[in-house]
C-alpha cells in the first residue's frame, strides 16, 4: 500500500515539476507548483512528519502560492517570448544537470543501506507536541531570530512596493 501511495504521489510531483519548467505561462507554472507541494505534503505524512505536512499545505500551498498568484494577476503576466538565440550555457546546461542528478543518485545508492525502508507509523515524533518542544528549548534562539527576519521582510516589502526608483 505504501509503495503504491509513494509511487502515485512521487509521479504526480515529478510530472507537475516538469510541467512547471516547460510551461510558458506563469499561471500554469504556479498551478503545477501547487500540485508539487500538495503531493509532497502526503509524502511528509508518510514519513511521520504530521506538523510539517500541515504547515506545507497551509504555508506553502496556501499562503505563499496565493501571494504568487496575486502578483501574476496584478501584473497581468502573459506567456514569455521565445529565446532569441540559444546561448552556450543553454546547450551545456541540460547534460550537466543530468550528470549532476546521476551522480547524486549514485552517491545516495552507494552510501545508504538498501535495507532501510519507510513504514507508515514507525516514527511518530513529528507531531506538534514534539516539534513545539524542540522549537522552544533547543532551537529557541533561531526561533526568536526568525521573528526578526519576518519583521525585516515585512518592512522591506512595504518600502520596496511603494518606492519610485528613477
Amino acid at each position, binding site marked *: 500500500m505504501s509503495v503504491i501511495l509513494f509511487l502515485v504521489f512521487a509521479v504526480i510531483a515529478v510530472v507537475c515539476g516538469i510541467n512547471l519548467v516547460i510551461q510558458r505561462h506563469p499561471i500554469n*507554472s504556479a498551478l503545477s507548483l501547487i500540485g508539487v507541494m500538495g503531493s509532497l505534503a502526503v509524502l511528509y505524512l508518510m514519513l*511521520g512528519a504530521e506538523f510539517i505536512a500541515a504547515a506545507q499545505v497551509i504555508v506553502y500551498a496556501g499562503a505563499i502560492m496565493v501571494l504568487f498568484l496575486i502578483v501574476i494577476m496584478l501584473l497581468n503576466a502573459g506567456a514569455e517570448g521565445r529565446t532569441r538565440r540559444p546561448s552556450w550555457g543553454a546547450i551545456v546546461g541540460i547534460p550537466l544537470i543530468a550528470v549532476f542528478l546521476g551522480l547524486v543518485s549514485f552517491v545516495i545508492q552507494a552510501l545508504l543501506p538498501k535495507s532501510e525502508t519507510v513504514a507508515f507509523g514507525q516514527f511518530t515524533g513529528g507531531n506538534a507536541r514534539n*516539534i513545539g518542544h524542540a522549537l522552544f528549548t533547543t532551537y529557541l534562539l533561531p526561533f526568536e531570530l526568525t521573528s526578526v527576519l519576518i519583521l525585516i521582510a515585512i518592512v522591506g516589502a512595504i518600502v520596496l512596493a511603494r518606492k519610485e526608483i528613477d
Partner: protein
Amino acid sequence: MLHAAVPLNWYLILSAILFCLGLAGYLYRRNVITVFMSIELMLNGVNLSFVAFSYKFRQVDGQIFTYFVMVVAAAEAAVGLAIILTLFKNRQTLDIDDVNSMKD
C-alpha cells in the same frame, strides 16, 4: 507488492529529481516569476530530504530545519515579489533578459 515497504533511497532520489527540475527551470526560464517559482521548487526538494533524514535518524531536528526553511521561504517570497512589483513598475517587463543594465 501490497506489503512491500518503500526504500528510504527513493525519497532522497525524488528529492534530487525535484531539485534538478528547479535548477533547470531557474536556468532556462526567462519570466522572472517562473524563475522565482523554480527556486521554491528547489527549496521543496531540499525539504523532502530533510524530512527523510529526520525519519532515518528518528529525530525531530530535520523537521525543525524544514520549518525554518518554510519561514525563510515566506519572507523571501514577500520581499522577492515586492522587488518584482517594483521592477514591473519601472521597466514594464518581466523578462530577465531585458533587465541587464548592470551587465552592460
